[in-house]
C-alpha cells in the first residue's frame, strides 16, 4: 500500500510536468492543427536559460525568494519570445503549405535547436540547488518531498491562470474562436496571426515553467531532454484528446501515474515503452482521445 501511495505521489509530480508541456502541444494543435515538434526543445531551452540566469544574477550563491522568482520569470519570458520567433520565422511562411511540409519544418526546427543546444551548452550541465529541499515521512516507507509539493503547487496555479486567460479574457475568447474555425474567426475580424503568436507564447511559458521545475528537482539538464520529454508530453496530449485543454491535463497526469506505477511494480527499463504503447492503443481505439472532439475528414 505504501508503495502504491509513494508511486502515486511520484506520478502526480511527474504528471504535472507532462501536463504543463502537453498544454503547449494541445493549444498549438488546436489553433494550427500542427504538431509543434519544436515544443520539446523550447522546454529544454527553458531549463538552460534558467540555469544561466541563476548563474549570472548570483542566485546560485545566495538564493532568495525574489531571486528564484526572477529566474523562473526570466526563463518564461525568454521561452515566450523563442516560441513566437519560431512561429514567425518557420511556421507562418508555410501557413498555406501542405501539412507534410509544415511537419517536416517543425522537425527541422526541433533538430536545429537540439543540436545548437549541444554546441552552445555542452552535452550535460548541473542545475544548482536554489530552492531549499526537505522531506517528510508521515508513514514508514512513504516520503513526501518539498519539491513534489512545489511542483504541484506551481502547476496548479499556472493551470488556474491559464483557465482564467482562456475562459475570461478577450484574447482567450479569440483563441477559442480560432481553434473552432480559423477562417470564420478571420472573417469576424479576429487578428488570427496575433492570436496564433499569443498561443505559442502561452504554451512556451508553460514549457519554461515545467523545465524550471524539472531542473530544480532533478538537477541534471541536457540538450536532448526535450526530445523524450516532449514526445511523452505529446503522447499525454493525444491521450487526453489533442486540442482539448482539460484533456492535456488529464492525459498528463494519467501518463505520469501509469509510468511511475509501471516502473514501481514491473521493470523501469520498459518505462519509455509505456508512453508509446499507450499512444498506439489510444490512436487505434479512440483517435480523438479521451476528451477530444471527433472530426470527420471531408472533401
Amino acid at each position: 500500500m505504501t508503495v502504491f501511495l509513494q508511486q502515486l505521489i511520484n506520478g502526480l509530480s511527474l504528471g504535472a510536468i507532462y501536463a504543463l508541456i502537453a498544454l503547449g502541444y494541445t493549444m498549438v494543435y488546436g489553433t494550427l492543427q500542427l504538431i509543434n515538434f519544436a515544443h520539446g526543445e523550447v522546454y529544454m531551452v527553458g531549463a538552460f536559460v534558467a540555469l544561466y540566469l541563476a548563474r549570472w544574477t548570483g542566485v546560485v550563491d545566495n538564493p532568495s525568494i525574489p531571486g528564484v522568482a526572477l529566474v523562473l520569470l526570466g526563463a518564461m519570458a525568454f521561452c515566450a519570445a523563442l516560441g513566437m520567433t519560431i512561429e514567425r520565422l518557420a511556421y507562418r511562411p508555410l501557413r498555406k503549405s501542405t501539412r507534410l511540409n509544415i511537419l517536416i519544418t517543425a522537425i527541422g526546427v526541433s533538430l536545429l535547436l537540439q543540436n545548437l543546444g549541444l554546441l552552445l551548452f555542452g552535452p550535460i550541465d548541473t542545475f544548482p540547488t536554489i530552492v531549499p529541499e526537505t522531506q517528510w515521512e508521515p508513514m514508514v516507507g512513504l516520503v513526501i518531498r518539498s519539491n513534489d509539493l512545489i511542483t504541484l503547487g506551481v502547476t496548479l496555479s499556472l493551470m488556474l491562470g491559464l483557465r482564467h486567460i482562456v475562459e475570461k479574457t478577450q484574447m482567450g475568447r479569440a483563441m477559442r474562436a480560432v481553434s473552432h474555425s480559423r477562417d470564420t474567426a478571420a472573417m469576424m475580424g479576429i487578428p488570427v496571426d496575433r492570436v496564433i503568436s499569443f498561443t505559442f507564447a502561452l504554451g512556451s511559458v508553460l514549457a519554461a515553467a515545467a523545465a524550471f521545475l524539472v531542473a530544480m528537482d532533478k538537477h541534471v539538464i541536457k540538450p536532448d531532454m526535450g526530445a523524450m520529454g516532449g514526445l511523452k508530453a505529446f503522447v499525454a496530449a493525444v491521450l487526453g484528446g489533442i486540442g482539448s485543454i482539460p484533456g492535456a491535463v488529464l492525459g498528463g497526469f494519467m501518463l505520469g501515474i501509469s509510468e511511475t506505477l509501471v516502473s514501481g511494480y514491473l521493470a523501469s527499463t520498459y518505462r519509455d515503452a509505456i508512453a508509446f504503447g499507450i499512444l498506439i492503443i489510444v490512436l487505434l481505439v479512440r483517435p480523438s482521445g479521451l476528451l477530444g472532439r471527433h472530426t470527420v475528414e471531408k472533401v
Partner: protein
Amino acid sequence: MLRSAIVGYGALVVGLAAIWAVHYFVIPWTDVYFTSVAIRIGINMLAVMALSLVLGFTGQFSLGHAGFMAIGAYSSGYLALHMGVPPMLATLIGGFAAAIGGLTVGLPSLRLSGDYLAVVTLGFNGIIIVVIQNTKALGAALGMIGLPQATSFGWTFTWLLLGGVFLRNLIRSPHGRMLMAVRDNEIAVRSLGIDTTRAKVTAFVLGAFWAGIAGGLIAFLNASISPAQFSYDRSIELVAMVVLGGTGSMSGPLIAAAVLTALPEVLRPIAQYRMVLYSFVLIVMMLARPQGLMGSRELIDLFSRRKKVAGV
C-alpha cells in the same frame, strides 16, 4: 510495355556485370577508406529508396524507418551469428522479417494519416529499440558483436541495383500509379472503389523489406551493431534525405543520400556541425523549395530533350 521491360532487365544484367567487374578489378586496388565510404553511400541509398517508396511515392509519413532497419539488422545478425546462416542469405531473411514487422506496424496504423501516422511510427521505432535494449539474446544495450564482415562493395551495390529495378518497375506498374494516386488525393482514390488502406500497407511492407535489407548490410559491415544506430535520429536522417532529394523522384533522394553521406567525410573538421547543417538545410528547403531538389523529376529527364508526359 514490353520494350521498357526489356530495357529494365537489360540494364539489370549490364549493371550487375559492371558492379562485379568493379568489385573484382577496381576495389582491390582502391583505398580501404574510400571503399568503406562508397559502401556506406550504397547502404544509405538503399534505405532512402525504401523510405522514398513510402514517403515520396505513397505520401505516408513514416518517422520510424530506422526501426525496420533494426529488425533487419538484428534478425540477420542473429541468424548469421547463432545459426550459421550465410550472411547474404541472412540479409534476405532479415528483409522478410522487417517486412513482417512492417505489416504488423502498418495494418493498424495506416488507418491514421499525416501527423498521427508520423508519431505512431516514431513510437514503434522507440518500442523496437527498447525491446532490443532489453533482450539479452540480442546483446541488450551493448549490441551484437563478432558478426561476419560480409558486406562488400559488390553485394551492397547488387542489393541496391535489385532494389532500384524493383522500385522502378513497381512505380511504372498500375500498382505504383495507384500508390501515387493515394498520395495525391486519397479520398478521390477511395471513391473509385480502391482499398486505399491495402495499397498503403503494401507500400509500407515493401518499404520495410528494403529497409530491412539495408539493415542487414549494416549488420555485416563493421562486425558489430548497437541499438543506438537505429534510433530516431537515423529515421530523421532518412526523412531529410528523401525530402531534400524530392518526394516523388527516384533519383533525387538517391543523389541526396550520396551527397549527405559523403559530405561529413569531406568536411571532417566540422563534423560536429553535421546535424545543425542538416536541420538548417531542411528548414530552408521547406521554406524555399518544398518539393525538394528534384521535385518529382528524374535525373534522366534533365538530359533527355523529349518532353515527358506529366506524371510519367
